């Protein structure tokens, strides 16, 4: 049986536009689901419906196979970690963690024992008597996790839990959350606008845009076979390049098709090459650590390519030839953005329609 099933969930706030336009998902027990999408696309709204904090009037929400649209939050066996943590400022760390147990009438000795053991897992033991006001951001984040974990829920909802942390802490906590998921075996539904977080954490990723679910699949599938241009462009960093097919030399020049290729799939050449390629001028090179991103300007617009350190870097203003491997390219309908399953055509099989002079 699925842990959580969403059937055609729609939502609009009173007097406002529609926020969710029919979202359907089927989530299994113990899965780590990441909902990702740009700010304002309705991720938090969806999570609040799951939590029971906002009424779910249109569509059907099933928890463990039972209709849960009208179930109040306290009866859902769901723990939530809020983006701003929402710790009780008048309670100590220990009281914050134990509060949910107290409300559920767990005897005092038992609940303190459990709260302490959760605090130990999260390395909060030395702060038990502090109030949230006297904690750092990372510590508050842990308390927020502890508060949800103490109750031993079957499902956890997390709304951008790491977005208020600095980068190093965020990366560290990401690993810890993944570890916790393995230990707890609980279902986790995790909201983020950060595609790296999505790909690194999820068993399955749900990509949303403007209240529509675009694709719900494993990170591999999302990355390798995005259903449309939005998904392709949203996941992966630096973002995928899109070029109208007729701007690529030696390609085939199909009309109304955009070709997408990830920056890693491009190779830089100092002189014209055989095979599909694009002529471009280097605008900027940017170091990211192990690699450089080369930003170029071409007839088809801005493009970026990745160069490993150690390779020779082009200079600003240089003209380069970017060659691409057709087997790594994706084709999208230029108008609807839908990915097309075109047979990969090798350039040698195609009649040359035109030859561009290389400037």
């Amino acid at each position, binding site marked *: 049986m699925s842990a959580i099933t969403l059937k055609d969930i729609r939502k609009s706030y009173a007097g406002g536009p529609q926020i969710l336009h029919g979202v359907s998902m089927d989530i299994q027990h113990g899965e780590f689901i990441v909902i990702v999408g740009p700010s304002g696309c309705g991720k938090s709204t969806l999570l609040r419906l799951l*939590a*029971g*904090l906002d009424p779910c009037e249109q569509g059907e929400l099933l928890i463990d196979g039972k209709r849960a649209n009208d179930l*109040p*939050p*306290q009866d859902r066996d*769901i*723990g*939530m970690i*809020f983006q*701003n*943590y*929402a*710790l*009780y*400022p*008048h309670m100590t760390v220990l009281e914050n963690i134990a*509060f*949910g147990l107290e*409300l*559920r009438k767990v005897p005092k000795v038992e609940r303190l024992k459990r709260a302490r053991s959760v605090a130990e897992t999260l390395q909060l033991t030395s702060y038990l008597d502090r*109030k*949230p*006001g*006297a*904690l750092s*951001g990372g510590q*508050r984040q842990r308390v927020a996790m502890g*508060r*949800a974990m103490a*109750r031993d829920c079957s499902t956890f909802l997390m709304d951008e839990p790491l977005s*208020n942390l600095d980068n190093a802490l965020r990366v560290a906590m990401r690993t810890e959350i993944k570890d916790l998921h393995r230990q707890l075996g609980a279902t986790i539904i995790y909201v983020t606008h950060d595609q790296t977080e999505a790909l690194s954490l999820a068993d399955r990723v749900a990509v949303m845009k403007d209240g529509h679910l675009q694709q719900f699949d494993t990170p591999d599938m999302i990355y390798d076979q995005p259903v449309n241009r939005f998904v392709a462009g949203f996941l992966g960093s630096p973002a995928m390049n899109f070029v109208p097919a007729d701007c690529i030399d030696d390609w085939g020049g199909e009309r109304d098709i955009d070709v997408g290729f990830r920056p890693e799939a491009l190779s830089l050449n100092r002189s014209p090459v055989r095979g599909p390629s694009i002529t471009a001028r280097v605008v900027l090179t940017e170091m990211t650590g192990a690699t450089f991103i080369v930003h170029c300007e071409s007839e088809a617009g801005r493009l970026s390519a990745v160069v490993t350190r150690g390779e020779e870097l082009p200079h600003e203003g240089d003209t380069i030839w970017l060659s691409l491997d057709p087997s790594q390219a994706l084709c999208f309908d230029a108008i609807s953005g839908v990915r097309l399953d075109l047979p990969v055509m090798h350039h040698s099989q195609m009649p040359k329609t035109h030859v561009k002079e290389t400037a």
Partner: protein
Amino acid sequence: MKPENPFLAVLALAAGLLFLSPVLYSIWMSFQTADAYYTGNIEFTFRNYEMAIGQYNFARYLVNSVIVSGLVTLIGLAVATCAAFAFARYTFAGSNLLFGAVVATLMIPSHITLIPNYLTLAKAGLLDTYAGLVLPAVSNGFAAFFLRQYIRGIPRALDEAAYMDGASPLKVLWRVIIPLSKPAILSMGLYIFISEWNNYIWPLVAIGREDLYTLQIGLARLYRVNPGEDIIDWPLVMAASTITILPVLVGFILVERHLIRGMMMGAVK
């Protein structure tokens, strides 16, 4: 911390003395004999306090005032806090209209409601009872308004966190909202208590029995101690006034320490 500006310190001291001087003078006077007061001599005595507490029954009035003001404050705060929570957190059909009505009651002078209240209580048989003193004062539109504004400043995410933790609305109110509103509730309580302590007109109208007099009624009565004589025993009046002021002063000093700011620190972010 900025260094104290000596000029401001002197100014504050002067203002403090100015406000305090009548109080100090009346306390001083309350320890003088009447004869000494009228002849301009100085003669120290406890007689005025003995008379006020014994002969003039001020111990009883003090108990009455404490009971009435205490009940009005407790019940008034309870009612206002519940109303404030509802108005701050729930929208329902007509909620804005209802809140408008609550605010509108602030614009009605209490004197206008004096006679209707009197008639209502008379019908209910509550004149000359503690209930008659307490009930009309427990609905306090200003307190509801003030606390609602305060509660609106508490992040709603805290309520939601408590709901997720398994709380009912009443639990949220009791365990989250009230503890976090403590400074506002205490300030409001102090304000209600003092207003009720100083209330004169309603006890005057609603109470005829001497054993239910509050301090203010008792105090006013001292001016007519000796009908026909136009000499008022001022040292006695001052002793009674001191008895009237002192509990409020002590109460204020006790509560004031709890009006801590910065209760919201660390809630979100």
